[in-house]
């Protein structure tokens, strides 16, 4: 490990130059735009990718990415995938249940956008919560991500069974009205979530960096995605959420994320401040 760590160390300036060249190359070849991503996390992920692909410099990695089409999807996993949990931060889901669900009940039909859904844990969590609150039958959840490989996994809804104990504990703390085991079947060390949930989730490819709004929704949940963006890209994403939300629609973001620095902040009320749930103002 020591030798590997050393072999990928290099002068910071060279790394930064090659870093920008690689990000540009990915944008021009594959139309994935990482130029507005926070560099610190991306640098760390790219260092890990260099080890995985046996490259001693980002230039070498760039050569592989440009000349071998099979490399990019694997690299994309390094750049995008985060392992989440179902009902991560149970207090957030409890706040949705207590404060947002009563408002959602007033709509004849519901659309929810889970932006940056990764492997689907949050989309399924929301589907279960809405089922428990009697709202899922009139709801469509749009779960979007830029990684099509991850979206396929999300659509399959299959998770290692050893993660389910953690999911169950979180679910319980979220104010559960049923047992999580009602929603999956376990076999061969895997838990597969039910079709009754999947029928209300559409997983699709969407980039907060380059795409536009695709539907009007009553709730956007986008948690621990904005921290990977720089301020300008955060603004773009928050602008999309503002545009997608109906008047008095709701936006939930991560515990350590904020609208404070965004020019769109004035468009939102601080609805549940402790859980970072905002409501789009009616008068806008």
């Amino acid at each position, binding site marked *: 490990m020591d030798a590997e760590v050393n072999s990928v*160390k290099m002068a*910071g300036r060279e790394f930064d130059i090659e870093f920008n060249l690689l990000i540009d190359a990915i944008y021009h070849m594959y139309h994935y735009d990482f130029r507005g991503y926070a560099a*610190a996390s991306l640098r*760390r*992920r790219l260092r890990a990718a260099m080890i995985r692909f046996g490259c001693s410099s980002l230039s070498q990695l760039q050569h592989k990415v440009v000349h071998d089409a099979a490399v990019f999807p694997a690299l994309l996993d390094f750049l995008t995938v985060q392992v989440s949990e179902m009902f991560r931060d149970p207090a957030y889901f409890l706040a949705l249940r207590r404060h947002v669900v009563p408002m959602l009940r007033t709509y004849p039909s519901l659309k929810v956008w889970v932006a940056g859904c990764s492997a689907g844990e949050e989309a399924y969590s929301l589907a279960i919560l809405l089922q428990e609150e009697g709202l899922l039958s009139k709801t469509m959840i749009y779960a979007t991500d830029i990684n099509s490989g991850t979206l396929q996994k999300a659509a399959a809804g299959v998770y290692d069974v050893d993660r389910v104990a953690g999911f169950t504990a979180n679910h319980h703390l979220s104010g559960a009205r049923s047992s999580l085991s009602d929603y999956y079947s376990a076999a061969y060390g895997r838990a597969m979530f039910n079709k009754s949930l999947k029928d209300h989730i559409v997983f699709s490819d969407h980039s907060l960096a380059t795409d536009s709004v695709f539907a009007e929704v009553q709730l956007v949940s986008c948690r*621990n995605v*904005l921290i990977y963006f720089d301020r300008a890209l*955060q603004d773009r994403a928050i602008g999309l959420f503002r545009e997608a939300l109906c008047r008095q629609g709701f936006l939930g973001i991560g515990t*350590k994320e904020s609208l404070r620095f965004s020019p769109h902040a004035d468009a939102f009320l601080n609805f549940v401040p402790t859980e970072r749930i905002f409501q789009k103002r009616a008068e806008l």
Partner: protein
Amino acid sequence: MNLAGRIDAVVIGASAGGLEALAVLLPALAPGLSPPVFIVVHLPRTPPSVLAEIFARKCAVPVREAEDKEAVSPGTVYFAPNNYHLLVDRGPQLSLSADDPVHHSRPSIDVLFESAAEIYGARLLGIILSGANEDGAVGLAAIHDAGGVTVVQSPKEARAPHMVLSALKLRPPDRVLPLNEIADILRTLDRVGPLERMN
């Protein structure tokens, strides 16, 4: 060891037994300190972190929990929030991540130290304190390889020595010292000049 004029930032990593160690070190930071101080302490994942509140009362310098995309202020102590990695980015500014735990830890000391080594290079001081796992060893080696100054708490004194022993094994640090002598080093760090202070 006198670090006057050598250090632009300090990173500290601690785990089991680390809070007692920090209670000795952080009050040694003088008012008007120039380098910012970034700290990762491993804590159980569930309760909200209250470290900044606890240490703000004991310190002569500002102590805060790090916020995402916050510009780094001189002489301020930043604690990584619970359940997020803390990284330093160009600017310098702070950046949080929800990436996988490293050595079962989020925040991870390695993640903070490696990111800070990239930004501050040879002008970084890294300190590993008491702890019961091996997080921080790779990060401290990265600081050493970038030409920075590395200090490890004396394993005899550390309540849980595994973390300092792992760091010692990977790369001999510049100093292995008891806490009171690490505190003496912190007292040699630069303070902002009268002109800067007026701005």
